Every structure is written in C-alpha cells, then in structure tokens.
C-alpha cells in the first residue's frame, strides 16, 4: 500500500503544469476554444507526448500507466484544459490499444500520438442513461458488409473526431449484455450525420446519427458481439481520469477562493477573517484531500486489472468525486458572492466543470448503485 509519487511522476506533473499555465491563461479558463486555439493546444499536447502517453513506444507512445494519466488529468482539471484528450487518448485510444488488431493500432495510434488524428467513442443513446448495455443502434450483416443504423447522443468531442468508435447491436435485444460490437467509422463516411453542440462547461460534443452506414468486418474493434466488458473497462478508465480532473479543479477553485477571501473586504475586514467562511473553506479542503486520495486509488485499481476490485474502487471514487466536486464547486460560487455568478469570474467555470464531471460516465447515484450491487471485496 503506497500512495507516494516518484521523481518521474513529479517531473511529468511539473511539465504538464508548465504547459497548462502557458496554454490556458488564468482569466480565460473555461472559455470556449476557437478552432485555431484548439489546434495549437492539440499540437502542444502532442509535442509534450500527452497524446501517446499510454501507448507502446513502437506506436509513438511512451507506455505509461493510469498513474501518469491521473497526473495529467489533474493538471487539466486545474487549468480547465485538455479538451479532446480524454476522448481520444483515455477513452477511445486505450480501448483501441487494448483490443485492436495490429493493423488497426498502427493505422491510428501513431497518428493520434502525433496530433494528426482525433478519436471519439459513441456509446450513449437517448434512453440509455448510464446503462452501457442499453444499445438500440443496430449493425446488420448485408451482403458481406455491416450496415449500421441508430442515433448516438452525447458523443464527447464528436464534433471534431476524425474516427468515431460506435457501439452497435449485432445481436440480441436492447438491454442484453451480449451482442454488442464496436465499429470504427470514418466521421466523413456516407450516412454519418454529426450534429455538433456545446456542453454546459464549454466543450465540444455531438449527437451522431448513423443512417445505413456501410463498413467491412475489418472495422470491428475487439471481439464481435462481446464489446460490453471492453466498453465497461473504457468507461471506468475515463471515470477514474475524471476523478483526477475533479481533484485538480477543486484545488484550483480553492486557490481562487482563498485569494478572493484574502482581498475582498466587508464589514471592515477581509472575508478571510470571518469564521463562518473559514469553516466552509476547511470543509472544502477536507473534500479535496479525499478526492485526491480516491483519484489515486481509482488509477491504481485501473492498472491492477482485477475487474471486481476495479468496479468497486472506481465506483466509490467516482461517486465521491461527483458528490464532493459538485458541492465544492457550488460552494465556491457562494464564497465569491455575486461576482461568483458572473461569466467573468472563473469560480463559476470551475463549478460548471465539476457539475459536468458528476454527470458523465455514471453519476454518484449510478455508482453507489453499482457499488451496492457488487459482492463485497
């Protein structure tokens, strides 16, 4: 049992922090990215090696573990940065690296690592909430090829992805755990309709319709008909990374809040002198330490590869990060007073990200449910 960071961990964290401090100026954090700015940042992430972090060196990566991804995610949380990284690298990229054929991996992963390609994972549907087996989209064999039909919702970074990994049902009824298959689809393929939108926290996403999209069997990523465990692993990895993002966002929001309380004066004294506000800050700090610890535990559980343990710890971590993150985010607005309600003040942008983090990849209620329904481990 060891929670300590080694020298390489610290060096990576410091490098990402420098990158974020440069790319995401404090007063702009949380703002919508223009395509030009997004492209510069994406190139910067590639240059720093962040887009290939978990992949094999021969595929342009550096073979790092979930611990390193956690450290990066925490810095992105702090700077409200890293747009696109979670979808391309953590979610879709690792799914590909784990289950793709050598041909698929060498076709897409080096391009992702060098910043030439973006990926997205389309798994959610209008009625699925957080149930990964709830897939109505179909993949039917027609004349030796697959024909994909269905409507995928809330595809993170689906607005800019070059290749979309879509989960479709090749057999079985809507809720069945078996019969799911993942296909890699070119975002510009005939029949793919991308409807871009912006998320609450100012990020790109899309609803994507697949109308008779034709793909060959070599577009299948992983085992045909048995995609659910792969998908669950991918979503758990993303949930673990979001816990780290929450920790970073909470930490940055606390720094902003402390600065405000030290400088803002009311009733003849800085707000930091008021005990009732001090106690709220103390509770926020205690929340931060817990979310940090759970983010570490979740990353370690992802690396360890024991599925029941991973489910147990990731669910605990995500539920807690979701609850405490949102709580701290909204408290951050309160402690900034009316300024906290404005678009100009960054506190609200952190609150928005923390709120969104709870809603993605299973909210606190979903993960409590999953934890409660698991056998004790």
């Amino acid at each position, binding site marked *: *049992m060891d929670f300590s960071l080694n020298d390489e961990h610290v060096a990576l964290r410091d490098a990402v922090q420098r990158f974020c401090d440069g790319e995401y100026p404090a007063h702009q954090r949380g703002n919508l990215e223009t395509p030009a700015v997004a492209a510069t940042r994406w190139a910067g992430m590639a240059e720093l090696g962040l887009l290939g972090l978990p992949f094999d060196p021969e595929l342009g990566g550096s073979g790092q573990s979930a611990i390193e991804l956690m450290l990066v995610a925490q810095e992105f949380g702090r700077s409200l940065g890293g747009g696109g990284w979670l979808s391309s690298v953590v979610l879709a990229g690792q799914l590909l690296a784990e289950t793709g054929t050598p041909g698929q991996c060498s076709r897409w992963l080096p391009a992702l690592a060098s910043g030439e390609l973006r990926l997205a994972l389309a798994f959610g549907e209008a009625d699925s909430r957080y149930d990964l087996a709830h897939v109505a989209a179909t993949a039917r064999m027609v004349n030796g090829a697959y024909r994909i039909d269905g409507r995928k919702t809330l595809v993170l970074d689906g607005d800019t992805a070059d290749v979309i990994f879509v989960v479709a049902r090749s057999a079985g009824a809507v809720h069945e755990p078996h019969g799911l298959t993942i296909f890699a689809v070119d975002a510009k393929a005939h029949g793919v309709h991308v409807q871009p939108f912006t998320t609450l926290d100012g990020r790109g996403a899309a609803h994507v319709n697949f109308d008779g999209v034709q793909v060959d069997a070599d577009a299948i990523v992983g085992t045909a008909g048995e995609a659910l465990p792969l998908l669950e692993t991918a979503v758990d990895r993303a949930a673990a990374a979001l816990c780290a993002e929450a920790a970073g966002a909470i930490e940055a929001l606390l720094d902003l809040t402390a600065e405000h309380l030290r400088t803002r004066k009311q009733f003849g004294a800085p707000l930091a002198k008021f005990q009732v506000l*001090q106690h709220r800050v*103390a509770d926020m*700090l205690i929340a931060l330490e817990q979310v940090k610890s759970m983010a570490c535990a979740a990353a370690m559980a992802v690396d360890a590869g024991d599925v029941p343990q991973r489910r147990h*710890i990731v669910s605990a971590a995500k539920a*807690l990060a979701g609850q405490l993150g949102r709580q701290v985010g909204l408290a951050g607005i309160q402690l900034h007073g009316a300024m906290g309600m404005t678009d100009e003040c960054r506190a609200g942008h952190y609150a928005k990200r923390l709120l969104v983090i709870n809603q993605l990849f299973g909210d606190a209620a979903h993960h409590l449910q999953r934890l409660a329904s698991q056998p004790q481990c």
Partner: protein
Amino acid sequence: MKLEFSAADEAFRQEVRAFVAANLSDDIKRKVELGLRLEHEDYVTWFRKLESRGWITPGWPVEHGGPGWNHVQRYIFDEETLLGGAPRIIASGIQMLGPVLIAFGTEAQKKRYLADIRHSATWWAQGFSEPGAGSDLAAVRTTAVKGSDADGEHFIVNGHKVWTSYAQWCSMMFALVRTDPTAKAQEGISFLLIDMKSPGIDLRPIRMLEGGTDLNEVYLDNVRVPAENLVGELNNGWSYGKYLLGHERTGIAGIGSCKQQLARARTLAAQQGLGDDPLLRWRLAQFEIELMALEFTALRLLSANQKSRVPAVEASMLKVRGTELRQAIFELLVDIAGPNAVPFSAASQFLDGVAEGPAPVELGSLAANCLDSRKLSIYGGANEVQRNLIAKAFLAP
C-alpha cells in the same frame, strides 16, 4: 504507487489477527462488539497480553520498548485489533505521557515511570481541561507555587481539573499548571506529575448522558508535589502539551473503529430484516465510500510524510472527518434499532445485565453508544477548533 499491501504486510496482518483470536477472551470481545462497558481489569488483561508480545506501545521508540513498526504496520495493527473485537489502547500513560517523558523527561523519571506504564501497573490521568479551559487550553488557572521545606523543594498545587477520563483507575496524573501568573497565556505553564493519593486531592465522578461515570472532576487543595516531578523546564509546559497532542496521529481518524461499527450495522440490519431495504442499502453504500475515502486519505497523508507524525493540518483534517463519520455511523445504528432504541436501562450497559435488558441484546446499547460518540468531536480540540486551524493555515496571507 501501489494498492496492494506487500506480502510482508499481509503476513503481519495474519500474525496480528491470529494473536487477537488466540489471546482475547470471549467476554471482553463480546463487550467490545456490543458496545458495553469495559472494566479496568478488562483493559489491564488485554494490555498485558499485548505487552507480553511487545505490542503495547506502538508509538514508542524501539529503545524504550516500541515494536519499531512503520506507518503501514501501525495502521494494520489498529485495524486488525479493532476488527477482532479488542479494546482500543485508551491508556493516556501509553498514548500521551510516555512519548513526552521519552522526549523531555529526566533519566530518573524515565526509569521510574516508563516500565510501569508499559506493564499497566500505573494508570495515568490527563489533567489538562478545567472549567474555564476547554478547547482554549492556554486558559488553565490551576496554580503551582514553588517552595521548600524540611522535606525539600516542592510545588503547592491548587485548582480544579475536569473531564478527567478514568481518574478512578489512576494512581498518577500529568497536569498542566500555571507556574507564572504574570506571563502571557501560553507562557508560564508547567507540566507536573502528581500522585493521586496525595492529601488534598478530591475526586468526583460526573454522570454522563448515557449513564457512564468514567469522567471526573479533580479538586486540588494545597497538594504538595515534589519538585523532581516537574517535566522539562519550568514554564515550558505548553510546548510539551502540544507535543503530546501532536503525537499518536496514526490512529486519529479511527478507521478501525469506523469499520468495526459499519460491520456491526450490516450484521444488525440483517438481523432486523432490513438486509434488502433499498434505502438502508443506499446509506450503507454511502458510508462505505466515505470510509474508503477516509482510509485512503489517511494512508496517503501518512505515506506523503513517510513517518508517523502527520503535520498538524493533516492531523486536524483526519480528526474532523474520522470523528464525524464515526458519529454518523452511530446514528445509522440507532436508525437500525428503530423503536428498540427507546427503552433504556443502566443494566443494559453491562455484560451480565444484558439478559434482563429491555431491548434485544444487540440493540440495548446502541443509543447510549450514539450519545457517547458525541464526545469524539468535542475532545482533543473541538472540531470547530480543528476547522479554524485548517482554514487559517490555508488562508494566511
């Protein structure tokens, strides 16, 4: 970073578990598991078992009889003994005075007192709080005036200590007393060792909410204390008191106790037919994640510091979270008892009284335990004071 305990740690865990199973009597175990009153001899019996194995003073240096464990081993020891139904090491001689004497005592004091503390031959009372000095400990007003007579140099102590735990079992007391009334609050306080059988000491038990009488008032009326019973320097007692309160932080979060009580909640819920109650399952799951977060936070903060002394702010955070979580679990236990939490009899707090108790055996003590747990956020620096410390360190300009 690693989530698993090492093979050596796991082997140590098995060793502790086997020791508890082989050495803890059924009566004591049952009292602990049912939250019933433990007698002095229960503690002494168990502490002497630990002593014979060299495990009674986990926080002491090896040369003074400590086992030389690292923070993970100490953590495992706490968890395994509590989960096995053993009493906590509550003796303030072991937890508090020992480390102070080792750090600041004279050779003569160490020789005279440490071995008796280890063997549970002497129990020590903590004479810190006073009616006018609770969380604000620097306000102590008990005076000690230095003088000398035919029998040698001595202090004459006058004052009133309160909330003194288990003073009825104690033959000695370590106390903070004011030796320089003209100095500022924290200065002018000294750390004295007082024989409880001295003339002029009057002990009065305080009856608490849940019926217990383990807390006492101690009146000191012209009590003569030999000058050699001063620990460290005159007027420097505040810093020894702070050292004492800062020691032994490994167990401050009470994780073993939380696990013990949560396990109790699961068992009782099943017994009460609430095993499949969705709302209860939800609450248990919520407690489980909060406990996990507390546990990993304690381990992370300890490993970040690589030693058993956690900096003050982290210790305050663990104290606040750990005590509030434990209190919340006790409230859950009361909820599980339902209407059975209402009947109350003092007899139900004792093992031999349980059978005639008004409620089913396992439920009779729950409400009393819940009330008793309110002390957790009051003692050792009220949680509000801890929050002040946490926030002030962070908000300092």
